């Protein structure tokens, strides 16, 4: 049984669908990359999978049960969405923002225990921000903020991680750190779905890719086969070259300009 599945899922804002008729299965320890041009409905799909955007049609199943039948907190313990950004209304210390990730396990009254503090510490170390635990989030750079939001999700220790463009603001070193953190979670049986514009990140991390164009699924399958010259032309309207790495895997070099 899939951890998380979409069955003819259609979601959008108001009554206008931004993504329609999506079928997918997310298995434990597997990684799915969602690709597509701007406005294709990738973030909408992620929101729907997290259950924070109501569906217009179809269903999302968590451990075989429709998401609508779950209590919000029970969903949050199992599925965590890492948005591109969150509002930083107050100058919280990094540690406190990351500790919010434990909220689904604590409920309204239970104080954080040693296990919660340990999860927060592990999450901060995974994103390389342990040294900035006491710094105000408002003093961080864009990339550091993105890593704090990721750490908050890691602190939840969910079974499914949904990442919306997690590497968008990261330098090369921290992209590698992110890939390492994702691989570690995959090895422990966590399922990962991520939205990305970087096709090489999808080729490096994903077991499966799903390509959206104008809200519809146009390709779905093994990244080495799906990410092709034809896809670059048809979906992204660019030309590109494909390189073969030493390990036999593929890398793509889009032709810009």
């Amino acid at each position: 049984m899939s951890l998380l599945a979409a069955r003819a899922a259609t979601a959008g804002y108001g009554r206008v669908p931004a993504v329609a008729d999506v079928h997918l299965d997310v298995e434990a320890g597997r990684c799915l990359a969602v690709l597509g041009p701007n406005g294709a409905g990738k973030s909408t799909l992620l929101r729907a999978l997290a259950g924070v955007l109501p569906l217009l049609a179809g269903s999302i199943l968590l451990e075989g049960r429709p998401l609508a039948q779950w209590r919000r907190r029970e969903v949050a313990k199992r599925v965590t969405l890492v948005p591109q950004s969150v509002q930083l209304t107050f100058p919280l210390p990094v540690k406190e923002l990351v500790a919010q990730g434990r909220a689904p396990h604590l409920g309204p009254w239970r104080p954080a225990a040693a296990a919660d503090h340990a999860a927060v510490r592990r999450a901060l170390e995974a994103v390389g921000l342990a040294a900035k635990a006491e710094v105000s989030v408002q003093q961080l750079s864009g990339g550091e903020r993105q890593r704090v939001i990721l750490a908050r999700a890691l602190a939840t220790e969910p079974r499914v991680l949904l990442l919306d463009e997690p590497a968008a603001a990261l330098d090369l070193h921290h992209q590698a750190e992110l890939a390492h953190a994702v691989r570690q979670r995959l090895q422990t049986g966590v399922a990962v779905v991520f939205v990305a514009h970087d096709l090489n990140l999808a080729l490096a991390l994903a077991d499966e890719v799903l390509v959206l164009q104008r809200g519809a699924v146009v390709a779905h399958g093994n990244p080495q086969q799906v990410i092709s010259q034809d896809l670059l032309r048809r979906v992204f309207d660019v030309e590109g070259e494909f390189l073969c790495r030493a390990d036999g895997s593929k890398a793509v070099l889009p032709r810009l300009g």
Partner: protein
Amino acid sequence: MTRVADLVVLSGLLTVVALTLLFGGPAITPAEAAKVLLGSGTGDAAVVVLQLRLPRLLLAMAVGAALAIAGAVLQSLLANPLADPFLLGISGGGAAAATLAFVVLPVASLALVPAAAIGGAAAATALVWWMARGPLGPSPTRMILAGVAVNAAASAAILVVLAAAPSPRLPGALAVTMGSFAGATPAALAWLLPYLLPPIVVLVHHGRDLGLLATGEESAATLGVEVGVVRQRVFLASAALSGGAVAFAGIIGFVGLVTPHLCRLVWGHDLRRLLPRAALAGALLCSAGDHLARFVLAPTEIPVGVITAVLGVPFFVVLLRRAA
């Protein structure tokens, strides 16, 4: 640091309690006041302390606590540091409804004025939220603009009601528009507490949810907050606090803005820690403000809202500049 701040607020409150009970009109000695408070005092001192000064002091403290809590939770719920019952038009909506109720209700039904104020405050809250919301949550800028619009509409409604009010009802209706604790009586306090205590319990219960909501509605939902349910409860509870405060003490601005921010500087942003401290600090601000309001231009008493505005306006300017 936080322990010291706790002690400062508590000692401040005790000082204001002592000053308010002992001074203002006929002076009462500490021994007399103690006797009255312990139930053995009689004569003028007992009347002054139990019928005049203590109710006024407790009303100021209750209203200050209510406004500070309402401000703190609205700032988190709406992820907006400028949110405050006064600036968002919630107090204005409550005042408009209370003024109307004062004028149109028969004398026997005047006990319903607080309920009307809470209804007006809730309607203003719903209106502001409806105007400010977007597909991914409310916009902070639109919210402040919506507050300006609701405040303007409430002021206009109040003026119309006052212009049409029959003269015997005018003083009561006018009192709602001017913040003051002068109308405090033991009976008023007994009426006020049921309006304040249940909402405070609800808000403290949602303290952790509110901390998550300060990072945005979608972000809070991903961490397990039932956003719609929590928003509805917090709106109703903060409308009850603001409306209750308006019905018994009129419009008092900026307490809900200034107090939570000052408390956040010392006690941090966890609302389960912050709300009790904000309540005490709001109680201190309003009771000390009321004491000043009676003594700055003595024997003339100025509205306590003037004192809180003198403190609040510069603070608001600083917050605005920092946001820019």
